[in-house]
């Protein structure tokens, strides 16, 4: 067999020499060498050693994502995928060692020839001697991986960081990283490299979620207790991702402890939670369950009842429920069932009794609810030592429901008659099926490819009236409700490693979207190149294009539940983005204590959608297309700098981003460029975590950001109101004045709010108990009580009757405490 392979290589090399002679003058020497190496990679089929299997936590048997698997010299390697699976092809099995490494775990080394044939199971133990770190870049050696513009956070560490109302939030941690900003003051939404919140793809176990905000955006729906792994791509998106323009947040839920039952409950200022996990059948199947519930309504109900003599209840609450079951069907197949349900609710419930015959008794109920539901079935299949597949069937929905009803009864009567009710609904529902494959072709090429099909249903707003005289009527433009869209995707990406120093990722994402008899097509290249510089540094470059088939109509990005998802149509075509990035990175020393990166990026947007000038998001009577204008273009340029300390008692990072972010629409701002609402010229962050001892840790975060752009009046004049003039030319009140004030703005977003900055602190007291541990977390949000502006407005000061500029701030200094018990 070896001789046959040698003859094959000889013949191929002869053909290659001929090819080189004919082409080198045209294409240049370097390109030809590149092609030579490429084909040699495919052609070389000497004796290979293929090892495949899973990496799991030794204690829980939970699969670990992103573990580095490499040979002893670290020249060839791979990572475990989202299911903990890996396959690696090495030149030979003899005289080599397989190394498995992951932050926070002890590295494992195996003589390859001692490993069993067939899938291996590598168990990694937690490294108790190593101080746990909050690592925010790729867990693996960045000089060896074909990944770029990627951020990740070990979830168990983020629980120890300062938080709002004591509730850890993975999105808030990302806001502290280069290239990622928060929205308005206090909100947990993220704007990545100048993009808007709707341009982020949120995936929970491969299934997209549409609205990930609680409480108007001050907390995300992602409960840290339920999450195993989270990665955020700011750019260089792999071909398997698509549908959004600016980022991909890939979140993996915990699978459940395969070995023993365990749980955790927590009570905090904002919420209480419980999670339970354990084996259904040891080492074969497990479950995970998590429930988080907000406490606000428990206080407000009581307060409202007391204040209204029992007539009124009001409040706000939310919950997040995560559930997962996974089971090994046989040696090659594993099945996962995942569900998520979350809901926010604001309610007012009043029951007023008439106290005299001239009054009516009344019952009034106002209920606003919104949230996501998601369910998925996923089947892993190991086809061979080189090929892994995953099939996903899923359902995801976001719905908003506003329900108001009322009844009346005469004095002294309990007959309230029929209810009058008004109900408004909107939302989006997806049914999807995905098939993904991973194929390790040889030691230099690994392919990922697959297909998706998604059926979208959009409800863009429907009003229903019912009542004793009105009967039942439904309003809302029926053509704009229940819109169906069908999306197909195919992708392929090849991860190529040419020697120790050079790598490429070459891929393409193909998509087709059909709606209202209109089809949109897209070919999106995804390219990345990597070159190691010396021993500890690397330079990388990427080029990607993205297309987005949905638009989010939002009230100034406040993350309100009534934000509306609308599909791309012929009237509102899909939006596009092209991003180019070049980056340098590496470690400062051999011990890899310090990690640094610098990335420069350029983005160009086309076909953006924005509200028409002056249109209010809350004007429900207008059709969608009347509210918005499209055809906008955008440009973003920036540089992200980051320095991170990975090991030791004190860890943390600091980051700085310098950027510029503009938009232009023909019908806005007289067709001139204007700063986008998420433009922040300077953003700097610093995060420090310090382990005082085994039981006490402290953490501090500080952020500074240039103020957000705002359209602020510069001048004023009296604008003639002829109707008022005719009715009363001498009227003084602004509403009836013949010359009410008109304002002059000098351009959209031409002013800036004051700079935003704040300091958050946290301290954790942990104690190991007989059957688990407990942790007290004390956090102080906005420790020096900075009054960061939420928005600006003018108002007449009643004292001196002068017009002054004011700001509204939301969050002063907020201490909070939470208690967590693990068992």
């Amino acid at each position, binding site marked *: 067999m070896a001789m046959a392979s040698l003859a094959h290589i000889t013949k191929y090399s002869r053909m290659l020499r001929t090819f080189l002679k004919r082409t080198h003058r045209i294409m240049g020497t370097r390109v030809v060498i590149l092609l030579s190496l490429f084909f040699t990679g495919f052609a070389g089929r000497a004796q290979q050693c293929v090892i495949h299997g899973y990496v799991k936590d030794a204690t829980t048997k939970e699969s670990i994502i992103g573990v580095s698997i490499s040979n002893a010299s670290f020249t060839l390697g791979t990572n475990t995928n989202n299911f903990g699976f890996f396959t690696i092809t090495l030149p030979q099995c003899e005289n080599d060692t397989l190394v498995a490494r992951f932050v926070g775990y002890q590295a494992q080394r195996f003589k390859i020839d001692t490993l069993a044939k067939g899938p291996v199971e590598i168990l990694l133990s937690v490294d108790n001697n190593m101080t746990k770190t909050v690592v925010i870049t790729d867990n693996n050696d960045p000089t060896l991986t074909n990944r770029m513009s990627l951020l990740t956070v070990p979830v168990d560490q983020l629980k120890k960081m300062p938080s709002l109302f004591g509730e850890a939030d993975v999105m808030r941690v990302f806001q502290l990283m280069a290239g990622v900003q928060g929205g308005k003051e206090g909100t947990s939404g993220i704007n990545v490299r100048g993009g808007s919140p709707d341009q982020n793809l949120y995936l929970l176990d491969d299934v997209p979620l549409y609205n990930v905000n609680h*409480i*108007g955006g*001050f907390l995300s729906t992602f409960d840290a207790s339920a999450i195993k792994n989270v990665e955020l791509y700011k750019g260089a998106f792999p071909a398997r991702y698509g549908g959004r323009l600016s980022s991909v947040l890939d979140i993996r839920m915990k699978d459940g402890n395969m070995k023993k039952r365990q749980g955790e409950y927590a009570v905090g200022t904002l919420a209480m939670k419980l999670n339970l996990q354990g084996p259904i059948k040891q080492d074969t199947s497990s479950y995970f369950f998590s429930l988080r519930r907000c406490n606000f309504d428990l206080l407000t109900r009581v307060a409202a009842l007391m204040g209204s003599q029992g007539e009124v209840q009001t409040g*706000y609450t939310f919950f997040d429920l995560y559930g997962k079951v996974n089971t090994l069907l046989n040696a090659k197949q594993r099945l996962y069932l995942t569900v998520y349900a979350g809901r926010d609710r*604001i309610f*007012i419930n009043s029951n007023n009794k008439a106290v005299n015959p001239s009054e009516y008794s009344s019952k009034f109920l*106002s209920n606003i609810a919104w949230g996501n539901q998601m369910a998925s079935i996923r089947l892993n299949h190991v086809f061979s030592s080189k090929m892994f597949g995953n099939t996903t069937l899923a359902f995801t929905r976001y719905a908003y429901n*506003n329900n108001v009803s009322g009844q009346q009864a005469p004095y002294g009567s309990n007959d309230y008659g029929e209810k*009058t009710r*008004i109900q408004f609904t909107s939302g989006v529902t997806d049914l999807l099926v995905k098939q993904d494959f991973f194929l390790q072709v040889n030691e230099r090429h690994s392919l990922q490819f697959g297909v998706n099909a998604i059926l979208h249903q959009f409800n863009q707003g429907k009003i229903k009236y019912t*009542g004793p005289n009105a009967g039942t009527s439904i309003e809302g433009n029926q053509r704009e409700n229940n819109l169906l869209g069908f999306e197909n995707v195919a992708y392929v990406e090849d991860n190529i490693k040419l020697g120790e120093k050079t790598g490429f990722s070459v891929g393409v994402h193909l998509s087709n979207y059909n709606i209202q008899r209109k089809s949109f097509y897209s070919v999106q290249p995804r390219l990345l190149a990597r070159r190691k510089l010396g021993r500890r540094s690397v330079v990388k470059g990427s080029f990607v294009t993205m297309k987005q088939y949905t638009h989010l109509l939002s*009230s*100034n990005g406040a993350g*309100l*539940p*009534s934000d509306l998802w609308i599909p791309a149509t012929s009237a509102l075509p899909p939006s596009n983005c092209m991003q180019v990035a070049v980056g340098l990175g590496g470690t400062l020393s051999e011990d890899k204590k310090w990690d640094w990166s610098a990335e420069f990026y350029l983005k160009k947007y086309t076909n953006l959608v924005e*509200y028409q*000038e*002056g*249109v*209010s*998001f*809350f*004007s429900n*009577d*207008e059709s969608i297309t009347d509210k918005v204008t499209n055809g906008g273009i955008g440009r973003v340029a920036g540089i992200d700098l980051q320095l991170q300390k990975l090991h030791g008692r004190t860890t943390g990072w600091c980051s700085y981003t310098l950027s510029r972010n503009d938009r232009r629409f023909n019908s806005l701002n007289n067709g001139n460029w204007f700063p986008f609402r998420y433009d922040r010229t300077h953003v700097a962050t610093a995060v420090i975590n310090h382990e005082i001892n085994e039981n006490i840790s402290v953490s501090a975060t500080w952020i500074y950001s240039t103020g957000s752009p705002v*359209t*602020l*009046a*510069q*001048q*004023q*004049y*009296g*604008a*003639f*109101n002829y*109707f*008022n003039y005719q009715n009363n030319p001498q009227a003084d009140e*602004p509403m009836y004045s013949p010359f*009410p*004030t*008109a*304002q*002059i*703005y000098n351009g959209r977003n031409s002013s800036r709010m004051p700079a935003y900055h704040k300091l958050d602190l946290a301290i954790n007291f942990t104690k190991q108990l007989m059957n688990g541990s407990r942790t007290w977390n004390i956090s102080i949000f906005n420790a020096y009580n900075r009054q960061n502006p*939420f928005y*600006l*407005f*003018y*108002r007449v*000061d009643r004292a001196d009757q002068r*017009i*002054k*500029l*004011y*700001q*509204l*701030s939301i*969050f002063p200094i907020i201490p909070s405490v939470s208690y967590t018990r693990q068992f």
Partner: protein
Amino acid sequence: MNKITLLTFILLSTSCIKEVDYLAPPFTSQLVLSAIINPDSLIKAHVGKTIAITDTSSAIVENASVFLFENEVPIDTLDYQSDGWYVSYVFPQVGFSYRLETRHPGFSSVSSECIVPPPPQIDSLFFTVGETLDQEGLPITRFTLRLNDPDPNINYYELILYGGNPLDPTIQPTQLTRITQLDDPTLIADANWNYAPSTLFFSDALFNGMTGEVSFNLMWGGYPSPGDPPYYIELRNISSSYYQYLKSWSVHRFNQNSTQNTRDPLTLLFQGDPVELYSNVNNGYGIFGAYNQILKDATYIP
């Protein structure tokens, strides 16, 4: 109301309002020229100026020179009256083009022009009561106006409803905005009705060159009692720039980032982005528009 509850609930518990030290950028003050003319009234123009947003001093300009041109022929220099008003002794004529030019030593000169449109033509005006009910089961008073639009060019109209004859000095007419609702989505969009304008204005987009029909309702139904004055409408044919100004003003006023229109700063969260107010004054701000009107009483159809 529920949306205000949503945000009020979230924000009021911890929100804080404080003054911001703000230094407005330097600017050059400009003249503001305002005049709405019609054949039944002498031409009057108001001259003001732009001032800093935090300035509370008078914005009136008292010693400007205001020149009137008719079909580009200078015909008058307006006399200063009081409170920034300058008056001419000319009645404008239908179909004629008028230009106002204003000069003042401290400002750049401004000018603007418009053409006086012909009077509108009402075919019929009637109203019914109780043919439909509102969401609370109360009878709706519904008006139907039929107007002729023979001109193939785009025309613009303004409508004001009165409960009584506006020319009768003994009664107080009821204004349109407090009592009327629209249910035609095209008319709602055209009239910027969601921004609560003072009057109902619209274009002839749906009936250009023919007879059109415009319907509107009273929110509180019921025919006036015997002795109450009948309904009247004043229908105006308005110039294009005046229509643009009315449409722009309703949006501009609604989205100003000040609390002069509402005392509650939280309601500002529900606004769109601020927009500049339309102006047809060259080198300055303001509006020079024209209209021609007809007054008609409405017939009750039982």
